[in-house]
């Protein structure tokens, strides 16, 4: 599913089946979903019927009429083909996903007992069932790990072959059906019934089976229908005008004019553009649960980004020890190292590393020290060790101070001296202002000093934010840090704003506030407590590693669990809207040249002065097309071929550039508007030269 599947647009494995698909889509029930192409099909059918009648009764110029009819049908088929190609690319992915959804046997556990299980087919599992999955087993359905830790190969979903850890509790508890446990065992509570698993949803999404028109697509379709109606009026009134002017226009010619004028180009490519937009996200390992979400991504005004992992490298690192007066650095380092020995967090490990590198303190073994580890909890906000009646703690400055205060009062009935506390707080503030995190260390109620943990801002992230600013998107950093630390990191990373000491509640209220101002908000999250905010956000990207609740709440899932991707998701959304707008402009601009091809050809015989072969309107034949027939034929051929020519662009999308809305519009107007006026003049003339050379008209 990763880079290997970036199949080229011209892949024969997609193109060949798409030809069959183009014919299958001639089914009126399918065609009617696309009003513009449906109208083309109807008038093509009409001309075909008239042609058959003429064939029987022996009308004139049947060869020419036949060619027009063929190209009319080609116009419809090319549109179907574009859609089939777009769908075909999704199908290829769906097929590879289906391979993962093989029949599995599940080890269904009886409640309470973790060893006794009975083998049942994976499809028979119900929500709430608990299954055992051991090394080598395929996880039978989506669920949440309720016990155990295992390494899981999720290549079937993410394409990433390196195994990932899934464990109970915390934010990495979700497992996906179809993935394989490589080592250890886990007990999984099933959260999705057969047929509704993540994999099933993914398959139907990439196949486009559940595709519904998005709001913007509906609005654009209305515009296209409106334009079509205008051209119905423009062409339907011509026979009367012609009759007044003493001429006669055959129906085939009128139909040719009508079909070239109505926005067939964008009409033909519209659904392909939509499918391709979803597809681009999938290629990018992001699953959008609806097309609406992709569109909303293009509109995002505010991006909420978690500091950790998005703006800074996932882990803070200890960079210095700052002892209080009367304590040596060595002493502080020793205590800090002791407190961190059993601490497996990256921060804890970085303290051990710093103590060793700077002060030569070797790692000690917890067991030989007879030490017991006191883990971090949300209540104490401290961790540490207890050794032979002595205790060492490290943690948030205020938490450690409170702890010391309590211990001192308990032991001596007095409060600890003010100097150490003041000094500690001063140092802590200084570190916080610099964007670091101060970690206070105490031993047996005695304050020792502060460890400076530093957030490492990711390289290049400031440039990304500058780019977002140019796109008109405000970035807000979300962090649990205190405001001082948050401000310093925000300044270093170049975000526009930050939310410090973030809780699920104030995150949610921040989103609501922004939305009340009329803004669209995007965020990503993984934990269960992110779920309300993910659901409230207009674009909520859940990390694949996250909890089931988070994945359910978001409207997109990032299979790579990379929060930085939010930025690319926005660009993909914008590219989708831009492609639609650009091709609409191109389609309508094309009409100018088509008029200049067909109108002189149609009206050439009106008001012919005595002694002249053509009427005055021949002067409008600025392309100097040889005959009326060749002019009309080349216009209709151009109109059909341009659909094929633009399939690659509609699948790839018009690239978004962060150069400001005004410049972007100017650029696209020049390319697709002005280009749309010029290209068909050249194209129709070139086709006409070939048509004339081949003697087709």
């Amino acid at each position, binding site marked *: 599913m990763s880079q290997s599947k970036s199949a080229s647009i011209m892949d024969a494995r997609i193109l060949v089946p798409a030809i069959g698909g183009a014919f299958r889509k001639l089914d009126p029930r399918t065609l009617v979903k696309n009003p513009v192409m449906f109208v083309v099909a109807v008038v093509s059918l009409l001309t075909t019927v008239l042609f058959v009648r003429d064939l029987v009764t022996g009308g004139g110029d049947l060869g020419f009429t036949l060619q027009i009819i063929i190209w009319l049908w080609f116009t419809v088929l090319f549109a179907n083909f574009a859609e089939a190609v777009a769908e075909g690319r999704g199908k290829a992915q769906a097929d590879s996903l289906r391979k993962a959804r093989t029949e599995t046997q599940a080890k269904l556990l009886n409640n309470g007992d973790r060893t006794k299980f009975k083998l049942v087919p994976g499809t028979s599992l119900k929500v709430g069932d608990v299954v055992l999955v051991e090394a080598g087993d395929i996880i039978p359905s989506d669920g949440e790990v309720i016990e155990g830790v295992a390494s899981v190969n999720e290549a079937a979903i993410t394409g990433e072959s390196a195994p990932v850890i899934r464990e109970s509790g915390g934010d990495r508890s979700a497992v996906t059906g179809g993935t394989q446990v490589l080592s250890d065992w886990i007990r999984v509570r099933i959260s999705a019934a057969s047929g509704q698993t993540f994999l099933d949803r993914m398959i139907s999404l990439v196949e486009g089976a559940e595709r519904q028109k998005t709001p913007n697509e509906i609005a654009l379709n209305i515009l296209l*229908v409106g334009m079509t109606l205008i051209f119905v009026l423009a062409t339907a009134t011509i026979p009367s005008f012609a009759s007044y002017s003493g001429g006669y226009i055959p129906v085939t010619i009128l139909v040719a004019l009508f079909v070239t004028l109505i926005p067939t180009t964008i009409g033909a490519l519209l659904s392909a553009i939509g499918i391709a937009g979803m597809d681009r996200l999938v290629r990018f390992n992001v699953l959008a649960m609806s097309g609406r979400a992709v569109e909303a991504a293009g509109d995002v005004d505010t991006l909420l980004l978690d500091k950790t992992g998005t703006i800074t490298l996932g882990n803070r690192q200890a960079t210095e020890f700052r002892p209080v007066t009367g304590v040596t650095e060595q002493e502080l380092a020793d205590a800090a190292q002791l407190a961190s020995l059993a601490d497996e967090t990256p921060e804890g490990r970085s303290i051990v590393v710093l103590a060793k590198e700077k002060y030569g303190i070797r790692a000690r073994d917890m067991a030989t020290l007879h030490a017991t580890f006191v883990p971090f909890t949300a209540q104490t906000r401290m961790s540490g060790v207890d050794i032979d009646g002595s205790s060492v703690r490290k943690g948030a400055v205020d938490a450690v101070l409170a702890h010391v205060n309590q211990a001192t009062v308990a032991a001596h009935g007095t409060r600890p001296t003010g100097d150490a506390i003041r000094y500690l707080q001063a140092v802590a503030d200084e570190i916080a202002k610099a964007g670091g995190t101060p970690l206070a260390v105490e031993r047996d109620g005695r304050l020792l000093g502060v460890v400076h943990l530093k957030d490492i801002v990711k390289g290049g992230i400031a440039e990304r934010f500058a780019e977002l600013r140019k796109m008109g998107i405000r970035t807000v950093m979300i962090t649990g840090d205190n405001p001082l630390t948050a401000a310093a990191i925000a300044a270093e990373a170049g975000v526009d704003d930050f939310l410090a000491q973030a809780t699920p509640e104030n995150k949610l209220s921040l989103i609501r506030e922004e939305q009340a101002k009329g803004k669209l908000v995007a965020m990503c999250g993984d934990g269960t407590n992110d779920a309300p905010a993910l659901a409230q956000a207009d674009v909520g990207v859940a990390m694949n590693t996250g909890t089931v609740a988070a994945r359910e709440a978001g409207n997109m899932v990032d299979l790579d669990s990379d929060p930085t991707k939010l930025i690319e998701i926005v660009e993909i959304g914008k590219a989708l809207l831009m492609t639609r707008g650009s091709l609409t402009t191109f389609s309508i601009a094309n009409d100018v040249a088509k008029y200049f091809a067909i109108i002189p050809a149609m009206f050439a015989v009106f008001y012919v002065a005595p002694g002249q072969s053509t009427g005055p309107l021949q002067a409008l034949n600025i392309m100097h097309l040889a005959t009326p027939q060749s002019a009309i034929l080349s216009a209709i051929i151009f109109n059909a071929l341009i659909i094929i020519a633009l399939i690659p662009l509609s699948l790839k999308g018009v690239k978004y550039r962060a150069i400001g809305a005004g410049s972007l519009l100017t650029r696209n107007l020049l390319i697709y508007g002005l280009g749309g006026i010029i290209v068909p003049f050249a194209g129709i003339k070139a086709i006409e030269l070939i048509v004339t050379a081949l003697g087709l008209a």
Partner: protein
Amino acid sequence: MTINGWIQILVYCGILALLVKPLGFYMYRVFSGDRTLLSPVLVPIERGLYRLAGTSEKEEQHWAVYAAGMLLFNLAGFLVLYALQRLQGALPYNPAGMTAVEPGLAFNTAVSFVTNTNWQNYGGESTMSYLVQMAGLTVQNFVSAATGVAIAIALIRGFARASGKSIGNFWVDLTRCMLYVLLPLCIVLTLVYVWLGIPQTLGPYVDATTLEGAKQTIALGPVASQIAIKMLGTNGGGFFNANAAHPFENPDAISNLIQMLSIFAIGAALTNVFGRMVGSERQGWAILASMGVLFLVGVAVCYWAEAAGNPLVHALGIDGGNMEGKETRFGIAASALFAVITTAASCGAVNAMHDSFTALGGMIPLINMQLGEVIVGGVGAGFYGILMFVVVAVFVAGLMVGRTPEYLGKKIEAKEVKMAMLAILCLPLAMLIFTAIAVVLPSAVASMANGGPHGFAEVLYAYTSAAANNGSAFGGLSGNTPWYNITLGIGMLMGRFLVIIPALAIAGSLAAKKTVPASAGTFPTDGMLFVGLLVGVIIIVGGLTFFPSLAVGPIVEHLAMIHGQTF
């Protein structure tokens, strides 16, 4: 073309530009309910009227209620005007002893004045009594103009308001437009016109004996007051059949300039009202600039075509531009300028016969109307008309910057696009379908004075003028037949109300939306880029719709003329 001619055109544009801001500011205050210079006098009258009508300026209306009020008011206006015409023989103020107007013509005329079109299938001095002219036609001149302005203000509120349910009160907007804007300006203009020599009397027609000893009846009447509103309210219905070419309606160059200015004054100022209401005058200037570009191109082409004249006439040894059908006291520049102004705005008053213009010169007024009278346009109507194009332009262009399209912070979505397309569609529907039928209907063809492409242009012009609510005639077509009276009437109704109702629906839908703050990602709608875009969309949509009909009308006529071919 002469330097003098261009100076006249530029002086006109300069004075108009100077009028926009003060008039816009005044109207902005009026429609916001703020105090103005005239408040001490008019507020008591205004309050009294609301009490009589059982409404209040504090009462706000949902768009559908607003639309219903507007429709009822116009229906009542139509019925009264129809009745007045049918009964004029039995009513007072009829010194010339006019008899009842026949039903078809009465229908056509009533619709025509209610819709601010003022298409006239009759000669005023030979058909209508003073009572009908004053109590019927002039009253509609006022209220149809006020209706247009009210709708424009309601639509502007749609853009200016956020998360609201209402778009104002039709009765209040109508009353304020009448009391504070139209009446005071018309009183001033009437006095100026009287000073310039335009008659204002209820006395009978005057008989004069010519030098040859023949008796000539000179028609008079309360002309000045009707001219004031006919121009200011972009109505265009002349007191006399010759309209502004008649010396009693438009005696000299100064009256001509004042009349041209008053045609555009309110329409142009509305762009400024819009800018002020949405909080950025630049937004209004951008729209006015788009109108200005289209206007100047039209003037240049029309003036050039008229000044160049007809090569076939030149071949006969007669040099110079085309003076046929023009008044010598105005000349070519002022006639061409007047023709473009009167058709750009939906005025329809004429100071020269458009039928006698060259093919290209006459095509410009036709195109102006086909574009939907959005170049300044009829009072109010031009402004809400161009906003329909703005919606379409912003929708397509907005997508090209990678966002759901928005204008002034309002997202343009399916509903707005649908309504804008409906409004844009109804004009070609009325213009093209009726023309298509008329040019093959023998009884309708019989009304044409000319054959060939020029005859075609006469019919096309008639339906275009009706649907665009312009009211100017190409001439040459005898419109007072049952077919034309009825179909032109229907065209006028379609062109008026099938645009107003979608416009109000958009107003309601927009008012309910949140206003998204602008960011670097929203493309600016107050710069040259937007002006160019809007002009492009108007020309492309209009051009694509009408190219075939223009091709078999004025274009073929022009090309034939070059080749020396006549019809």
